[in-house]
C-alpha cells in the first residue's frame, strides 16, 4: 500500500485518527506511541495544547480557591461575632418574661377591671387638661393597655360623662345583692343594686 501523500513510497503506518496510510516521513508519533498523519498530528497537538491550557487554568483556580479557604484570625473573628450576635438576638427576642397568652377572666375580676379603667380615666384627664374621653375605648391603648381582642370587655362597664361630677363609671350589670360601686372623679358612691343605678 502506498503513502497517501507520497504515491511512490510504501505506507508504513496508518493514521490513528483518520486511518489513511502514511509513510515514515509523513508519520508523526505522539507521546502515547500512536502514529498520526501531518494534519491529524497538528489537530492532535492543538487539542493537547488546549487540554494543557484547561489543566493549567483549573490548577490555577484550585490554587486561588485554596488560598481563599485559608482562614485567619479575622475570619474567625467574623464567625464568632456572628454567632454571638445571633445568640444575643435570640435572648432578646425569646428570653425574658412572656406576656400571658391565656384569656383573661374579666367576669371574675370585674371590680379590679373597674378600678383599672378608673385609674386610666384619671391619667387621661391629667394629660388632656381635665377632660374625659367620650367613650372608654378612647383610652386604649395609651392609657388603658388592653389587647385588641379584649376591647369588647369594656361593655361590662357603664360609663358616661357627667357635666357636674365629670364622669360616672360603674359595673354595667352588678351581681344581685351586691352594692354597686359608682366612681366619679370626686370619689366612690355606693348604691344598692335593688335600687338600680
Amino acid at each position: 500500500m502506498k503513502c497517501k501523500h507520497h504515491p511512490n513510497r510504501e505506507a508504513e503506518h496508518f493514521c490513528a485518527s483518520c486511518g489513511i496510510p502514511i509513510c515514515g516521513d509523513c508519520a508523526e508519533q505522539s507521546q502515547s506511541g500512536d502514529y498520526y498523519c501531518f494534519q491529524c498530528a497538528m489537530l492532535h497537538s492543538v487539542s493537547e495544547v488546549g487540554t494543557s491550557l484547561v489543566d493549567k487554568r483549573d490548577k490555577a483556580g484550585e490554587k486561588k480557591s485554596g488560598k481563599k479557604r485559608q482562614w485567619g484570625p479575622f475570619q474567625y473573628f467574623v464567625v464568632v461575632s456572628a454567632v454571638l450576635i445571633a445568640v444575643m438576638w435570640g435572648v432578646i427576642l425569646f428570653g425574658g418574661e412572656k406576656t400571658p397568652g391565656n384569656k383573661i377572666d374579666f367576669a371574675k375580676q370585674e371590680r379590679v377591671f373597674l378600678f383599672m379603667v378608673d385609674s386610666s380615666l384619671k391619667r387621661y384627664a391629667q394629660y388632656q387638661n381635665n377632660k374625659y374621653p367620650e367613650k372608654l375605648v378612647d383610652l386604649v391603648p395609651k392609657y388603658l393597655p388592653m389587647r385588641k381582642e379584649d376591647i369588647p370587655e369594656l361593655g361590662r362597664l357603664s360609663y358616661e360623662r357627667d357635666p357636674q361630677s365629670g364622669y360616672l363609671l360603674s359595673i354595667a350589670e352588678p351581681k344581685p345583692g351586691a352594692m354597686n360601686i359608682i366612681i366619679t372623679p370626686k370619689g366612690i358612691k355606693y348604691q344598692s343594686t335593688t335600687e338600680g343605678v
Partner: protein
Amino acid sequence: MNKGLGFTMIELMVSIAIVGILFATAVPAYNAYRERARGAEATIVIKQIMDSQIAYFLDNETFFPPPDEPIEISHIDEPDDPEIEAVYNNLNIRIVPGRFLNYGFYHALTADGPEFTLIITSEGGFNLPGGSPMIGYVLNDEGYISDAFGL
C-alpha cells in the same frame, strides 16, 4: 489579613458592619435589661404597699384610703403632692413619682367585706411582674393577696 500591611478594605468594611450590628443589638438588650429592672422595682414597691396595708388594717381595722376616696398617684405628680403625703402619713411609704409607675389605691366595700385593690401601671408600656403593663392586686380583710390580674 495582609501581614504587616494592615487591613484590607473588605476587612475594614466587615469590621465596621459588625460594630454597627453589635450596637444595634446592644440597644434592645439594654431596653430589656431596663424593663426587667423596673419590673423588679415594681415588685418591691407592691410588696411594701401590701405589707404596710396589712399593718394599717391590724391597727385601724380598715384599709387606707377611706372607701369613698380612692387615691391616684401619677408618675408626673409633684413630690409634695397631697396624695403622696397622705400615703406616707398613713402607710409610711414614700412613693417617689417619676419612676415610670402609676399607682391607684382603691378601698371598696363589698358583700364579702372590705377589699383593698392596688392598681399599678407602667409608663411606657413595659411589662410588670404579671407580664402586663397594667396589673391589679386585691387584699381582703383576711390578709389574702390575690394573684396579679393583668390586662
